[in-house]
């Protein structure tokens, strides 16, 4: 759920904004009941969109479906606002060697259909998710587990039904054997893909995807396609994240502006992201009902190292380009304060985020020009930044380009691909001209996630094809560490090396710029930038 997410948010940027000076709600503030049509009392509503795929935890990797999945399912653990682990369905998750992990479940949990949540329901679900024949989007998340290569071979059908690394000990205990130690494996378990499935799922997965039965804080009610999804609070839920409201309406809007308009007029409680057209005024419109907070996501421009431009380039040149970008002015003006300038390769809110004490991310046109010129310059004196035109990136890519062009004299051209699909295809096919727009959102709040998966040689999301022995060796050190702390520290060291190698130019950190209606309270976001829906109360 990475770039897709950021893309999704701003997709509405095509259409028109409305200027409404009218303030929704009106004078009778004691009338706390929302006047929203079709919303049962005690429910909250938010703009969400239409999930791309059926609602199966391991098949959903975009934020719209994720919001619904997370309300319906509870996995072993989750994270607090600072990225700390909070056990939900698990009593404990322990390991001695980072290779074998023991999971103890809280007893007495039930799925919404009344069947018990057991170790077996977890193991069976994980096996099913991983099986290549079931074509789950998120199957690779299970690839650390011993036996994954049997159920999900590189080619052809599955050779086994179950992974040998998963063993049920008793009703509430199971163990996970990994192929190699992964000190931060526990963090991965916080992803909803690791949720269990009830027996009813296996009878008809297709029907289940339309009306899922979970074990989470909310119970599925209905999915009116392209319009709304309704869930109600689960009264028997015993987890720490029990719903404080009676239910949620996930509504689908064609544009972010339309959703915002409904927020102003009291027809919607939560808006995930205020559209660019309303950003300049939303603080005036909403007063203290504004959410303006950073979370663990980072946007960057990524040089591709197979391109004519960057093949064998001196990293100092890339540092120069980085210094030619006026992050402060661009985030304030073009991006309307929706981003914070980046200061390292990791965003705040993830374990191991550090201050790199460098000026590489600070605008300094003179030094930028000198660094580029003194270190051989850019071949052809021209760079392209590839981006998808359907994601609302046009303005800032243009601004970054102009900033680089004005500061360093290197010509910079925005290279628009019509949509995300075409953008991805060009990356996969190694056809990026010189740089592409990268967006990375934390899968789990550890600095590892922002380095290993992006910059290790051959890593899954390393589409810049950066490869450096020293960096790989440093990553290896982190992976072999015996404790999570040591692993994080090793990766912090690796990050300092990255600064010298410049596998990407971090630009800014994501922020959530949303708002809520007068009918609700206690609105906060998690490290992912998503609302903590269970905590929202109705006035």
């Amino acid at each position, binding site marked *: 759920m990475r770039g897709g997410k950021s893309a999704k948010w701003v997709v509405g940027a095509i259409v028109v904004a409305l200027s409404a000076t009218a303030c929704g709600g009106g004078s009778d503030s004691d009338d706390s009941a929302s006047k929203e049509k079709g919303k049962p009392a005690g429910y909250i509503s938010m703009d969400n969109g239409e999930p791309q795929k059926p609602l199966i935890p391991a098949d959903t990797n975009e934020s719209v479906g994720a919001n619904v999945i997370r309300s319906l399912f509870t996995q072993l653990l989750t994270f607090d606002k600072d990225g700390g682990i909070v056990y939900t369905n698990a009593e404990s998750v322990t390991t001695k060697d980072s290779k074998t992990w023991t999971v103890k479940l809280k007893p007495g949990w039930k799925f919404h259909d009344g069947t018990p949540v057991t170790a077996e329901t977890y193991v069976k679900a994980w096996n099913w998710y991983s099986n290549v024949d079931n074509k789950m989007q998120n199957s690779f998340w299970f690839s650390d587990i011993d036996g994954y290569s049997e159920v999900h071979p590189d080619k052809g059908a599955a050779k086994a039904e179950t992974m040998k690394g998963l063993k049920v000990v008793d009703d509430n205990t199971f163990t996970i054997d990994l192929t190699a130690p992964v000190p931060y494996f526990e963090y991965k378990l916080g992803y909803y893909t690791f949720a269990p499935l009830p027996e009813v799922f296996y009878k008809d997965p297709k029907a289940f995807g339309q009306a899922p039965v979970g074990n989470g804080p909310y119970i599925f009610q209905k999915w009116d396609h392209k319009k709304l999804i309704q869930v109600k609070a689960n009264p028997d839920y015993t987890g720490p994240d029990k719903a404080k409201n009676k239910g949620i309406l996930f509504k689908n809007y064609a544009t972010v502006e339309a959703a915002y308009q409904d927020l102003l007029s009291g027809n919607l409680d939560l808006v995930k992201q205020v559209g660019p057209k309303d950003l300049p005024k939303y603080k005036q419109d909403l007063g203290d009902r504004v959410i303006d907070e950073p979370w663990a996501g980072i946007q960057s421009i990524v040089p591709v190292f197979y391109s004519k431009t960057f093949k064998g380039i001196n990293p100092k040149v890339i540092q120069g380009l980085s210094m030619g970008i006026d992050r402060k002015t661009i985030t304030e003006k073009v991006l309307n304060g929706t981003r914070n300038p980046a200061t390292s390769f990791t965003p705040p809110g993830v374990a191991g985020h550090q201050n790199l004490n460098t000026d590489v991310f600070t605008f300094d046109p003179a030094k930028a020009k000198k660094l580029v010129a003194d270190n051989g310059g850019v071949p052809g004196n021209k760079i392209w930044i590839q981006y998808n035109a359907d994601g609302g990136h046009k303005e800032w890519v243009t601004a970054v380009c102009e900033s680089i062009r004005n500061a360093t004299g290197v010509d910079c051209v925005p290279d628009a691909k*019509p949509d995300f699909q075409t953008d991805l295809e060009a990356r996969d096919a190694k056809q990026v001209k010189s740089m592409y727009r990268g967006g990375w959102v934390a899968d789990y709040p550890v600095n590892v996630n922002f380095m290993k998966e992006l910059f290790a040689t051959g890593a899954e999301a390393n589409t810049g094809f950066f490869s450096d022995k020293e960096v790989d060796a440093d990553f290896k050190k982190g992976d072999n560490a015996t404790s999570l702390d040591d692993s994080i520290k090793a990766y912090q060291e690796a990050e300092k090396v990255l600064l010298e190698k410049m596998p990407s130019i971090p630009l800014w950190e994501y922020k959530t710029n949303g708002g809520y209606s007068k009918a609700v309270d206690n609105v906060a976001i998690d490290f992912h930038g998503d609302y903590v829906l269970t905590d929202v109360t109705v006035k």
Partner: protein
Amino acid sequence: MGRYVARRLLQMIPVFIGATLLVFCMMYALPGDPVRALAGEQAVDPAQIAAMKKDLGLDLPLWHQYWNYLTGLLHGDFGTQIASGQPVADIIADAFPITARLTFFAFAFTTVVGISMGIFAGMKADSARDRVLLMVTLLLISVPSFVLGFLGQYFFAFQLGWVQPNVSGEANWNELFLPAVVLGSLSLAYVARLTRTSIAENLRADYMRTATAKGLPRRRIIGVHLLRNSMIPVVTYLGTDIGALMGGAVVTEGIFNVKGVGWSVFGALKQREGATVVGIVTLIVVVYLVASLLVDLLYAVLDPRIRYA
């Protein structure tokens, strides 16, 4: 008459097949793999993608895919969306009535207001009011519909508060008023001008003089003789306009958040949902073909000289 209709219906078949094939080929040629894109920026597993494509029949050669599509269509199956697994027919069933309503509204507006304006001006060609009409229609034709949409939204929804700026999921009639006016304005201008020209021309026709000489009451001359003859080119235009209005709804629906076929097709195009795009375009093509057939039949009613063998 019956034979003529049968012949025309037969002629529609190659046009229908050709148009779907054309759109099908264009979609096939698009870069960007919808199955691959589902994975976003995360890992891509070629084996898994290949398996998914096989399930969807996307690994077959173009002709085979088209054949499957066409045979499916004959059984009333519009195909399935790649990402959601929803039948395309369901998506069309949701979106089409909304666009149909919007189009109908725009069409009615165009017809009633356009023809009235045209008659009003045409009766006194080259008078001041004729000139004013000419300028108004020129302006309507010149301002692109998205600009008109912005302006309408800005003034009527925000400044005056007469209408809602966005159309809700139900797309009620009153909400569709402004979008329909914006959508219909270009056609309105054409209809008004056509009517005006046709009326002005027919006023000078011999049969008008004959009718007047015969001492027919003026009401009858205008109502029956003049209008009936003047409407022929207008009807021609209106017939083809229904299809164009539906196609043009992409812009209007986007601006006003109307969840009709234009909105659906725009989204589907970006997500490379080939079946959805082809299905919707096919439907618009059918509407267009049927409308032009109806227009030709209407000729016979309006112009007794035309007889279809």
